[in-house]
């Protein structure tokens, strides 16, 4: 059974809403279990949607965006698994596999946006320096709107207009390009950290940066909590050192006041 124009539009609208939710990680209506069910309702076969959504959800539960790597897109997986099961008559498991190329396509598009949106930060820096609240809001709305639009277009094209062409596009995409996006994602934070260091780093703080770096490099641990604990230890050490130094200075000053005969200390 084919998808009608009305269904195509409805799917696109649904994808925009769920896509924004995935972008913001808000209410988890971007998960395949929800997306599949909604797709099923739109194309008039809710049980099929739940079936495909459920199977895809189980497969995707282990794929997490944690740690900066972007898994195959769950929204496209949910939509396309259901749509393909409906249009081709494949069983839910087979449809999920057929949906994967579309899922990868959206993943690449988002990866590209992650890199491209770095440019918005320049305008944001300028706006922050001028306390321009309106512009900061605008930049965030723009980014989210671009993502929303992309979801709408991609889902409309994939589900209604040109399924085969979209699939061919994914398959024709060279591996080095998608790999390149991932590499850019691995290196671009370096610019962010350099910006941070430009403001924060002074020679006296360099030792602590090195300690944190070496700790995290040799500690094979996914969480930075141990590094933060070392940081707290160092901070406490510095704080108590400063405190005792201040106390010593105070004591010395008090001593000077007692010996008032000598008046050489008034210089400053």
């Amino acid at each position, binding site marked *: 059974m084919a998808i009608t124009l009305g269904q195509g539009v409805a799917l696109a609208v649904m994808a925009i809403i769920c896509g924004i939710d995935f972008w*913001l990680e808000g*209410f*988890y*209506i971007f*998960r395949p*279990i929800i997306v599949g069910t909604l797709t099923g309702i739109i194309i008039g076969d*809710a049980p099929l949607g*739940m079936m495909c959504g*459920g*199977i895809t*959800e189980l497969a*995707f539960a282990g794929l*997490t965006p*944690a740690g900066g790597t972007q898994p195959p897109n769950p929204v496209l997986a949910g939509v396309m698994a259901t749509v393909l099961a409906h249009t081709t008559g494949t069983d*839910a498991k087979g449809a999920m596999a057929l949906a994967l190329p579309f899922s990868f396509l959206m993943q690449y598009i988002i990866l590209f946006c992650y*890199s491209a949106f*770095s440019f*918005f*930060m320049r305008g*944001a*820096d300028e*706006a*922050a*320096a001028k*306390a321009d*609240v309106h512009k*900061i809001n605008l930049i965030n709305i723009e*980014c989210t709107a671009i993502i929303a639009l992309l979801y709408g277009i991609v889902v409309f094209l994939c589900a209604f207009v040109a399924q085969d062409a979209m699939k061919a596009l994914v398959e024709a995409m060279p591996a080095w390009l998608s*790999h*390149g*996006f991932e*590499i*850019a994602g*691995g*290196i*671009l934070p*370096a*610019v*962010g*950290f*350099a910006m941070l*260091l*430009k403001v*924060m*780093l002074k020679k006296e703080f360099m030792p602590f*940066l*090195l300690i*944190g*770096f070496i*700790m*995290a490099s040799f500690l094979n641990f996914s*969480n*930075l909590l141990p590094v*933060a604990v*070392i*940081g707290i230890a160092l*901070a*406490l050490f*510095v704080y108590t050192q*400063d405190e005792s130094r201040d106390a010593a200075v105070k004591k010395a000053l008090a001593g000077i006041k007692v010996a008032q005969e000598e008046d050489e200390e008034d210089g400053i």
Partner: protein
Amino acid sequence: MASSAPDKSGTPDATSGISAGTGKALTSSDVTKLGLRTLFLQASFNYERMQAGGFLVTQLPALQKIYKDDKKGLAAAMTDNLEFINTSPHIVAFLNGLLIAMEEAHEDRKTIKGLKLALFAPLAGIGDAIYWFTLLPIVAGVCSSMAMEGNPVGPLLFFAVYVAIFCMRIFWVHLGYDLGTRAVSKIREASEKVAKAATVLGCTVIGGLIASYVKISVASQIVINKDVTIKLQGDFFDKILPNLLPFGYVFLMYYLLKKKQVSPVILIVVTFVLAIALSFLGVL
């Protein structure tokens, strides 16, 4: 020991005088709204600054209330809140609440900055462990098996659980805010020393962040003969120092930004093009 001169050259010490006595700028409902606004955390997510733009948007209405007509103060706060951050959207509200309490008390900017840096990464780790690696597989497992039998309770239950998790953000933001308010009164007497200690903490964590977020891995190999190949990454760079390249690249960027005044835009373009080109050549 040579006394490490506090690096304050006329920075605002007036902070403690102005707003300490005059009631609070934020009401309880402002704090609740702040928690709900954490929805925008990832609104302008990008690789360079990650959640920075969205984090600032979350804080903005509260910051505006705190700084009112003080444009300079607001600009400084906005600039600080636009620095690199990447944490768990589920529990970021705790951080928002804590930091806004400090902003409200006009705590030293360095203290706020150091605290934010120190907390976001561990919070990310804790949040991922709870929400992605534990809760999602359980909820997805239970609900999916129901959905696959055609039982609508599956997707409905899934949705209900995550709406509840979202509402928890109100709890997190108030927890953070209360903690922050209590901490502020204790910090007050020694704010300069606390600011320095916070910067120490922040710098330690930045070191760790560089090692865990910046990833450069060379794929090239040198083939000596049929049996012997030298993997540049595994046999060479990793044998010198793990994460040597990420560290080197960060400091190259730092050098270009600070000493050569190169625009960040150029650095981003060059980095991006370099990444694609080196991927094409098979180097990375």
